């Protein structure tokens, strides 16, 4: 029978009588295996050591006072914004999902917000607590903080509760990102402990909101 390219060909005659490896053969293969694993493990160690810093840099270097992303910028960058399929000009609205800057799990729930959000003096779009921040809390945080349970006494379901803080005191210091425990936790990735982590864009929104004085807007 002609041997085909995948070499199935005629049956191997000896497979029914194939012996197991001898002690020496087994030892040689195990040593080779250990050698391969050692080299691979070393490579992994070196690779991770070289890249750990760059891995954590984006989260650690979130600028506390970075301007919020303009609506148009968000639209081109996040999956949520890609849902703003062209609408009739007369509606003058864009459709964004519940978390306008970065939806981890896109839902079909949409809300219409004005296409021209309130611009700041610098020309950027101001972060709105109701529009931008609370949806992130609702999506990511309230499962443990304000939903079925209120861990550490911290509820994030309303503006007043967010400012009230936890059993240990306020978690947000308006205008002071560096001393806001909530920001510290999400930037370090300590929170949320369960469920999807916050995306950089979501962290930026919350950070910008705190930096702006945590207004109830």
């Amino acid at each position, binding site marked *: 029978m002609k041997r085909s390219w*995948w*070499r*199935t*060909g005629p*049956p*191997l005659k*000896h*497979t*029914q009588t*194939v*012996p*197991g*490896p*001898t002690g020496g*053969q*087994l030892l*040689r*293969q*195990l040593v*080779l*295996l250990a050698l391969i694993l050692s080299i*691979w493990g070393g*490579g*992994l160690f070196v*690779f*991770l050591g070289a*890249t*750990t810093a*760059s*891995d954590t840099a*984006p*989260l650690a270097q979130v600028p506390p006072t970075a301007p919020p992303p303009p609506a148009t910028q968000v639209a081109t*960058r996040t*999956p949520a914004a*890609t*849902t703003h*399929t062209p609408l009739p000009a007369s509606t003058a609205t864009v459709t964004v999902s519940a978390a306008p800057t970065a939806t*981890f799990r*896109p839902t079909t729930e949409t809300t219409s917000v004005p296409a021209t959000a309130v611009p700041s003096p610098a020309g950027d779009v101001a972060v709105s607590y109701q529009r931008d921040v609370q949806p992130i809390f609702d999506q990511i945080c309230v499962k443990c903080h304000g939903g079925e349970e209120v861990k550490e006494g911290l509820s994030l379901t309303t503006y007043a509760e967010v400012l009230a803080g936890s059993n240990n005191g306020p978690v947000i210091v308006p205008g002071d990102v560096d001393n806001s425990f909530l920001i510290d936790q999400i930037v370090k*990735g300590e929170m*949320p*402990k*369960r*469920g*999807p*982590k916050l*995306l*950089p*864009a979501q962290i930026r929104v919350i950070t910008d909101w705190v930096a702006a004085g945590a207004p109830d807007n």
Partner: protein
Amino acid sequence: MDIAQIINAIVNLHPWHSTTVHFPIGLTGAAFLFILLARWRRNESLEHAAFFVIALAALSTIVAAITGIRDNLVRFEGTAPYVTVKIFLGITLFLLTTSLAVTRWRKREVLWSPATTVLYLAGFAGSFLLAITLGFLGGVILYGI
């Protein structure tokens, strides 16, 4: 729901990686099972099945890698957690599955030769372990730990 919404959901909204990663996981697992059965039962047909399945696993690893890079850029702005570990493990998985497939292709008796059978079986086990480790890290990204 119109066709534009469906296309938009597929192209822009839905993550692809979480779908495609199941192929390397399932295929490496199946290949490992087949190769164990083949060695145990001394069955050449099962060994053929393992060969084809591990070759398919190598191909599916490429697809998973491409969609993973895409999802990282689109959904995580290039800063997905554990991205470097996953890249390293993913490359290892691709190299391992490809090596297994090519080796078997070039050396038909690799499973039956006492001098190589342990290494060959370990390769299948390792590829499955790598795939489920990658899957676990993906689960950590999605659902935390």
